[in-house]
């Protein structure tokens, strides 16, 4: 907890994006989380991604539940829309908002408690329905606000700060998201912004349900020996399958990597992802392969990170429901209520 506001001064040489904003313009209030919290790095990554994409802050809705992670939307995009919902209920609030106004960019921010325990069902259904959103779980494997009990994503066999061993099986949210049909699935680490920032940027550009599981060490309760979500453990066991660069705009991609090591994925919004392979055999378009790969590596205690699965041609809930292009919240009464003649005609069609 810091008592002073972050100084307004910024580096005189800061670059500006297309809108004329520096990355400082995408900040929110100063964080009230513990010093060193991984969540603050995710906050910084979201700020960086939105800055790089030149997103207009008023086009973003950030929605969260309850928990350390769900406090973070206060710390980024101070000029965006926000809704801090009930514990575990971010997905339904986000779904409702998305249905009402399909034109906004939806950032769902949640934690392992919020999404893997109390809101597990909500998480599952929003993914299953293909809501057009970027769903970020800030995953530290521990209930920080209540002083360090294991959460549902804590690995079996890992140790709490007090030395107690976890005997429950862990929920792997990435595996679930893949199984439920998420069309953009990634895992990253708060201590690796070079990987995380482009992943968030690519997820924002994706049409459909994007899910990112970010391992985010809890400095206060889960950064000790025996933890599988500590800085040291994640760094030692991080198995990145690829690295990506997000290319905004329509410029041709000049790639100077060895042939076959870069794959260009064009997204629905016209942006492009240049995917640099680290694991030559990994195919991010193979959902089943990804699931097997994850399971095999998890058994070896490895944490697979990178863009694990993407379907660039995915569609979303609005496509499924065949809604109009105009956001529902802007439809006027005469459109919504076309009059008794139209009603009679409709009723007649059902007779």
């Amino acid at each position, binding site marked *: 907890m810091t008592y*002073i506001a*972050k100084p307004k001064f910024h*580096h005189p040489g800061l*670059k500006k994006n297309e809108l004329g904003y520096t990355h400082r313009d995408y900040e929110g209030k100063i*964080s009230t989380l513990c010093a060193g919290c991984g969540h*603050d*790095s995710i906050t910084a990554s979201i700020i960086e991604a939105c800055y790089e994409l030149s997103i207009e802050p008023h086009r973003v809705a950030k929605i969260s539940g309850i928990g350390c992670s769900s406090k973070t939307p206060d710390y980024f995009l101070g000029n965006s829309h926000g809704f801090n919902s009930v514990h575990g209920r971010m997905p339904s609030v986000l779904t409702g908002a998305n249905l009402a106004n399909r034109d906004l960019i939806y950032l769902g921010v949640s934690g392992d408690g919020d999404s893997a325990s109390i809101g597990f069902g909500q998480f599952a259904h929003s993914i299953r329905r293909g809501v057009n959103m970027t769903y970020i779980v800030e995953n530290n494997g521990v209930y920080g606000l209540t002083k360090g009990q294991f959460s549902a994503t804590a690995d079996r066999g890992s140790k709490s700060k007090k030395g107690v061993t976890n005997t429950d099986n862990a929920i792997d949210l990435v595996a679930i998201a893949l199984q439920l049909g998420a069309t953009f699935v990634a895992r990253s680490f708060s201590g690796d912004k070079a990987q995380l920032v482009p992943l968030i940027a690519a997820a924002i550009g994706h049409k459909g349900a994007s899910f990112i599981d970010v391992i985010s060490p809890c*400095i206060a309760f889960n950064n000790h020996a025996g933890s599988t979500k500590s800085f040291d453990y994640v760094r030692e066991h991080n198995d990145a399958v690829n690295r990506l660069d997000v290319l905004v705009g329509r410029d041709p991609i000049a790639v100077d990597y060895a042939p076959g090591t870069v794959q260009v994925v064009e997204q629905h919004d016209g942006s492009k992802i240049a995917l640099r392979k680290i694991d030559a055999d990994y195919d991010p378009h193979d959902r089943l392969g990804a699931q097997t790969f994850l399971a095999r590596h998890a058994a070896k205690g490895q944490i697979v990170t990178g863009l694990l699965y993407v379907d660039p041609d995915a569609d979303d809930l609005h496509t499924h429901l065949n809604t109009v292009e105009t956001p529902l919240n802007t439809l006027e009464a005469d459109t919504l209520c076309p009059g008794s003649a139209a009603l009679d005609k409709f009723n007649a069609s059902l007779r």
Partner: protein
Amino acid sequence: MKPTDIAAPDYFHKVVDCQWACPAHTPVPEYIRLIAQGRYSDAYMINWKSNVFPGILGRTCDRPCEPACRRGRVEETPVAICRLKRVAADFKDDITHRLPKPSAKNGKRVAFVGGGPASLTVARDLAPLGYHCTVFDGDPEAGGMMRTQIPKFRLPNSVIDEETGYILNLGVEFKGGHRIESMKALLAEKYDAIFVGSGAPRGRELDIPGRKEAAAHVHIGIDWLSSVSFGHIDKIGKRVIVLGGGNTAMDCCRTARRLGGEDVKVVVRSGFEEMKASPWEKEDAIHEDIPIINFLVPVAFVHDNGKLTGVTFQKVKAEYDAKGRRNLVPSGEPDQTIECDDVLVAVGQENAFPWIEQDCGIEFDKWHMPKVDPKTFVSTNPKVFFGGDAAFGPKNIIWAVAQGHDAALSIHKLLSGEDITERPLPEVHVSSQKMGIHEWSYDNDISNDKRFKVPHRDKVIALKDIRTEVELGYDVKLALGEAERCLNCDVQTVFSTSLCIECDACVDICPMDCITFTENGEEADLRQYLKAPSLHPDQDLYVSSDLKTGRVMVKDEDVCLHCGLCAERCPTGAWDMQKYLIEMTQAGSACPTKSRSAA
């Protein structure tokens, strides 16, 4: 890059840009914090120790510290360091009991030629050590150019009397009205050492047609100012031209405005920006309705049978050669004559040593300047030292003070039988400022205030009396606001590699994007990898040793606000805010001793 050696005294000293830029290395942030706390006497004493004349310098210093001030790199204007110094002098209590006591004499005698800032600094350093100091000056009172050349409306006599008095009261013997006419005779008096601080007393002449004929109304600037200062001159014609673009020209024109000059103009060869005068002195002149006319070179004094009627100027323009050097070349336009009743010539000052005989063992160079060692200030006669303008030509008071301290150290070492070329290292104190989890002993909340203006006396009143001080100085409230603008650059960010867990918290919170974790490389490469572009390569990079991941922490010291947020957000205490206090060695403190710092 190799890991930064923060134990080297210069490393953190350079981060305190103001102190590094000050010739006397005054601990600026330290005294500004004391002003903010209302501890004016403590702030004054810190200044007095370093720069000897806080009240005088707080009104007249050329402020090399202010262009260096980091605040000027993050917003438009630096902290008003100079005028805060005056605040310490204005609001202090009686400090006489805190001054050194005249001590028992050690039997050694030192003579001083000239009673200006350089000599008085040496005397202040030496007198408390028991030296018998005798200061000779042609003028009746001590102060040298501070008293004779700086107009009273900028620097009242009371301030000069007070601060020269503190020195003379240390048991220094002052022989006023006693001009030294012969070095040989002085040497014959068998002083143990002689310090020459006689300044640059000769105003440069402007030898153009009409000079001799119109001599009655053409005056040399510094001589004229001196005559005004002693009351020998109390009026001037209505139309006055001041020739020259330095601070003396500014003093001349403003003085002329107060002695009856109604239409006073400053005419300068160069362009406005290249003028030697400090920007604020030009502003003050313009504020008193004195136009500054540029790119005119005087070619003749126009006179009517010996009665000056004007000055003829050639119009020039600036041209730059391939190497970027500026040349003033005739613009081809017709010459211009400006009518006037009097001319003040302020086109430079020169040294003059007609009183030093050739066989004194003091050698001179081809520019007729004494050969003086720039570190020890000794001349080719091992007993004779030079300092201030007399040593290296006209500079400012603060340089004379800095040189005086060094010369005093040399004299003390010489008369203690030590090697004067061995210069002791400065004393450095480094201490953590942590008071609690998020509590520091300094105010780390950065003020967004713009520079506060120093209140001036109403122009109509100010122009009526030459002895009425124009600047009123900050009041307590304004002083507090201005003091809060200081970024506390002496409270250093100190990094401990072994404690860092590379969580990025400091990178994320730093408002100035100063901190980068990256792979190591050569300095030129590292500057390319920084999170925000490196704008000033002269500002150091603070590089850690290798971290666990093999990367290094690189901090660009350039625009750090010293807000301490990196240390507040660091979960392991790898960052700490530590106050770095460096005190330059002065005569008598040759061996660093443990002393209590003020805050």
